[in-house]
């Protein structure tokens, strides 16, 4: 992460809806060219954070800036695209007329609109339906239109709240490619999602929001690495001398044909490898074990978010 140019900055950002504290002192920086993923349980405050940045929700305390301007300034939104969750487009529009209307609000010229609108609808795969009334659109088509209206004016920052909601698997893959293309063009994407595999695939950095607080923040690789847990495989028929490893002070578990060794420090694995070669065993397989983002997520979000029902770890069958 070099040559960083902060695009979204929040400091000690707080929001309460009466009793409910939706955000508690959230400090976050997102830089240009990132695809930033915000994860969290239902009611964790993800949408609230985006809405504050866009000026839809008024913050209670702290500061939030977008493209260097205090959040909520209307002119800065010219350079911002937004796909809300549960969006409700005016039913009296067609796909094309809606984008024309929005394009006028963004100050796009008529020529510009005539050129860009079919183009972007092509990109999201609903160009053939651009002249149908929105009430005839299916859920996924509406979602695609929502993405189209969030990107067609070439914004610098794009907020997507559950972007793949209702989109079929092929469409999702296309959208992932679209997001990567947008990032390559130097745009910044801020994505709220529950689909962890997807986030894992496209996001450069991820934050986990829990009851209005950021509990983890980092690159996907950072978050999913499990420090000091290695999987070792030996040539067929060979056995790792378990008692010797344990004597070194490490934990060991047999997992099928493999052994999982938990060392105190990642470099300690060298001592295990020395032992292996000293015993004349042949190493066939060695990886540092990672966990999926889902594992991280489930572990981090053990407690429940405001507004959702209390569930214990046991009930969830947690780890």
């Amino acid at each position, binding site marked *: 992460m070099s040559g960083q140019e902060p695009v979204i900055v929040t400091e000690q950002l707080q929001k309460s809806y009466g009793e409910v504290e939706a955000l508690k002192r959230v400090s976050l920086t997102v830089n240009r060219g990132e695809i930033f993923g915000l994860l969290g349980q239902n009611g964790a405050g993800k949408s609230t954070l985006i809405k504050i940045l866009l000026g839809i929700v*008024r913050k209670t305390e702290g500061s939030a800036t977008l493209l260097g301007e205090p959040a909520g300034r209307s002119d800065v*939104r010219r350079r911002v695209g*937004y796909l*809300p969750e549960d*969006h*409700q487009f005016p039913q*009296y*529009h067609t796909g094309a007329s809606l984008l024309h*209307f929005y394009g*006028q609000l963004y100050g796009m010229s008529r020529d510009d609109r005539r050129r860009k609108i079919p183009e972007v609808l092509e990109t999201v795969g609903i160009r053939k339906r651009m002249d149908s009334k929105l009430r005839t659109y299916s859920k996924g088509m509406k979602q695609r239109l929502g993405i189209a209206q969030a990107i067609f004016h070439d914004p610098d920052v794009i907020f997507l709240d559950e972007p793949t909601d209702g989109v079929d698997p092929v469409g999702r893959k296309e959208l992932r490619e679209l997001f990567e293309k947008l990032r390559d063009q130097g745009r910044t994407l801020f994505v709220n999602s529950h689909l962890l595999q997807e986030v894992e695939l496209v996001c450069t950095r991820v934050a986990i929001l829990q009851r209005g607080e950021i509990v983890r923040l980092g690159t996907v690789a950072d978050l999913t690495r499990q420090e000091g847990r290695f999987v070792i495989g030996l040539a067929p028929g060979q056995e790792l001398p378990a008692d010797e490893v344990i004597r070194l002070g490490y934990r060991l578990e047999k997992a099928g044909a493999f052994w999982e060794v938990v060392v105190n420090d990642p470099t300690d694995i060298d001592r295990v490898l020395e032992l292996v070669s000293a015993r004349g065993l042949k190493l066939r397989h060695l990886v540092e074990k990672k966990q999926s983002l889902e594992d991280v997520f489930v572990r981090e979000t053990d407690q429940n978010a405001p507004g959702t029902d209390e569930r214990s770890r046991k009930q969830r069958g947690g780890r």
Partner: protein
Amino acid sequence: MQFLAFLKDSLREARNGWVLQAMLVLSAILVLFVGSISFTPTTVAEVFDTPLSLMNWGFRNDPNFTGTKLSIEHLESTNAQEPWKADYQFDFVISAAKPEQIARLEEKPAFPANRGRVEKFVRQAAPFLENVKAKLIENTPANERRFHVTSQGTKAADVTAWPHVAKVFFALEIPLTLSLRAGVYTIENYIVGGAGAWIILFISVIMTSGFIPNLLQKGSVDLAISKPISRWRLLVYKYLGGLSFTAILTTFTVGGSWLVIGLRTGMWNNNFLLAIPLILAYFSILYAVSTFVAVFTRSAIVAILATFLAWGLFFAIGRVNRDIEKREQTVAEQAANPTGPGNLKQPQNLDDLDEVMARIDPDAPLYRFFPKSLFGVAKAVHTISPRSYQIDLWLDRLIAQGILTDEELKESKSNTSVLAGWLEISGVTLGFLIVILGLACWRFETRSY
């Protein structure tokens, strides 16, 4: 640019579900109805038709007068093309079966059986004729009485003052003879400016009530706010979008009526076109209330109900205030001339009644229940209320001024009201709009969605 985009969007919203189209069809029906009303100048013969046939009907049913008949004969006019410029002469004939019947008719005090009474009868039946003279023709048969009636000139300066017969739906005759002017005034003031305006306002309130709650719906307000436009502008543009809906409707209805009335009668009352901005001004007050309530409640139904409530309230406030002012005028006149009788007249309506009451007892409650102690409160409330009632009065007044003569104006009721000046009306109304829309904007600005 953004404003135009919103305007277009609002019209699209109104056009959706055929609301605007249905409204335009409705207003086209009103214009067609107005266009179906035709006026033809009456002839003197037609004027006598009704009273004569009534009397003859009476004779037929009275055994004492069987065979008795009244008629107009040898009617001549010096100008058949323009009846309002003509001199007339005709014979007024009483023919009976027996001479005694004529004698008996002469005994009836009101019956037109002598010279003087025939003149009076003709003046009543045809009040527009000038210099009516009747002369008994001698040497007629004993069972006939014949008067030669002449008139010179008419009271009607031109065709518009001449009595006309009106037909609606192209064929149905209305049993009412009005001058062309009075007929057109009735259409413009009561049918279009009264009932038509009321319908336009009523329907507009309902149709536009959903615009702002729709905008504020969850899922659509986020989208709107995320566009590069400030919230207050968003709201004001939506408000103006609602007004544009009504502007189209009003222009179509009033403009269309103005056109067909002009084409049919040749009377182009340009003041009538002022109904367009005035109805729109009236609606701007109602829609501001609707917008205000919509921002706070996000409910179309509540907005409609509150708007109707405010509509009635502003009407009542305006009405009470006008009557208080009238009362004060009467009392001041009385005080200026304490010995004189004042012009105590036979009360024709409630307004007159209050005037008479006020002269007898200046402290009498208004409408018999609104005590004088509340006059000050009512006036204070009125001071800050939008002037919808006055706008309505002005609409009547302007239409009347555009069409009636000074004399007719004095007679017509629309001239008796105390009218506020334009500066006051527009100032207070604008102030009201700014305050109430300002509050709505403030609420919209500070709220989280």
